[in-house]
């Protein structure tokens, strides 16, 4: 194999800046998308555990739609199709006025897609709580909203921390799909360096290392958080 290595490339000229800004974009994109995913996912997850049939159906339909269409297809839908279906003035804003449309579309698509997964975790967390807890809280005079706020959600979230960690890492990795819309995130930056310099190993190695490092950090941090928030008397799930 003929290949002239040039690791210095990564620390030179515009390239170091591309990698850095790509990495920053990936992190910001993943964070915003996660905020949407967590908020929407929690609401939908709670909907799916309610007695109200309408809300429960809304929850189910949401999860089934967003979970069964590939993320890439969803990104294209949000970017190319949905704007066409909006009323005229909203369409004008989305197409002309909105700053940074690719980034915003990617955040929205990724957030709503991941929300369907978060919703399933939240639902399974709540449903794993014995019925007696809910009944006891109601008997104590809590309103249904208070039952969720003070009893079900605090326990439910804590039991599904490992799965939510997985979903967060999923958002972080899936943010790379934003490159198909033209967002210059980490993978796109590596690709661009490769195209400019014809050096392929170095930029992709840099991206690989950055992705793995973040994953490792998040896992370590969440293990710690998991131990801190463990409910007394339960098995130490995942904590070795």
């Amino acid at each position, binding site marked *: 194999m003929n290949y002239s290595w040039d690791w210095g490339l990564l620390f030179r000229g515009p390239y170091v800046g591309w990698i850095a800004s790509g990495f920053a974009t990936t992190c910001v994109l993943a964070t915003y998308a996660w905020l949407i995913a967590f908020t929407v996912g929690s609401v939908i997850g709670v909907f799916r555990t309610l007695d109200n049939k309408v809300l429960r159906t809304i929850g189910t339909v949401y999860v089934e739609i967003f*979970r069964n269409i*590939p993320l890439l*297809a969803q990104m*294209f*839908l949000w970017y190319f199709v949905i704007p066409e279906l909006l009323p005229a003035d909203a369409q004008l804003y989305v197409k002309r006025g909105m700053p940074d449309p690719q980034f915003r579309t990617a955040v929205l698509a990724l957030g709503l897609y991941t929300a369907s997964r978060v919703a399933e975790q939240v639902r399974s967390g709540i449903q794993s709580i014995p019925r007696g807890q809910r009944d006891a809280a109601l008997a104590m005079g809590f309103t249904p909203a208070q039952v969720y706020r003070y009893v079900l959600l605090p326990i439910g979230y804590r039991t599904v921390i490992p799965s939510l960690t997985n979903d967060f890492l999923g958002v972080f990795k899936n943010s790379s*799909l934003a490159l*198909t819309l033209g967002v210059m995130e980490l993978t796109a930056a590596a690709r661009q360096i490769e195209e400019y310099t014809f050096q392929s190993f170095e930029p992709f190695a840099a991206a*690989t290392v950055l992705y793995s490092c973040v994953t490792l950090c998040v896992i370590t941090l969440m293990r710690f958080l998991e131990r801190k928030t463990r409910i007394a008397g339960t098995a130490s799930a995942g904590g070795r």
Partner: protein
Amino acid sequence: MGFDFNVLVQHKELLLQGLMVSLQLTLIAIVGGMVLGTCLALMRMSSLSVVSVLAGSYVNFLRSLPLILVIFWFYILTPKIVGHAIDAYSSVLIAFILFEAAYYCEIIRAGISSVKRGQVQAGLAMGFTHLSMMRHVVLPQAFRNMLPVLLTQAIIMFQDTSIVYIVGVRDFLTTADVVANSTNRPIELYTVVAVTFLVICFTASRLVGRLQRRYAL
């Protein structure tokens, strides 16, 4: 802007061909991923710590990377390593198998660990050899436990094949994209891709759910 679904009828064959490529890619990657994944799972559970650490590092490393990045690695680097150009389809296939193997490894390992220790001891106490105990006691139960997860992973994998779009392999989404650009009908084409995936994946996941209830231990 009106809808014109005629464009779908006109390009029906091309689109079906694309869908077939997606399904084919899924099938090959599942088989390859499961074979390699089983090897990795056995390696991870080996008592030789070198072997288990090696398999463990591979699995954790690949699981920390986005699929897109892995596909790029193989697409750009394989020709440099083997010295001549290879087609995008083969490079994507290799990437998928190696990537999915990491996920299948974890599923298979979890399935085997889900069989209670007492079953192993009972099997050995009955006079089974280690191998026949695995074959007749542990694996049948493990397989039943992991079947729904394996199938769910297959559905996810089917959705993930759309990512080959980035290297231009003519799968379903890429074909639709090409047609969308040549006919200037992106709305109809992206919608039909989304609806097709929705119908296939929804039906498949319902079937998995029924299977799970029927075969649950």
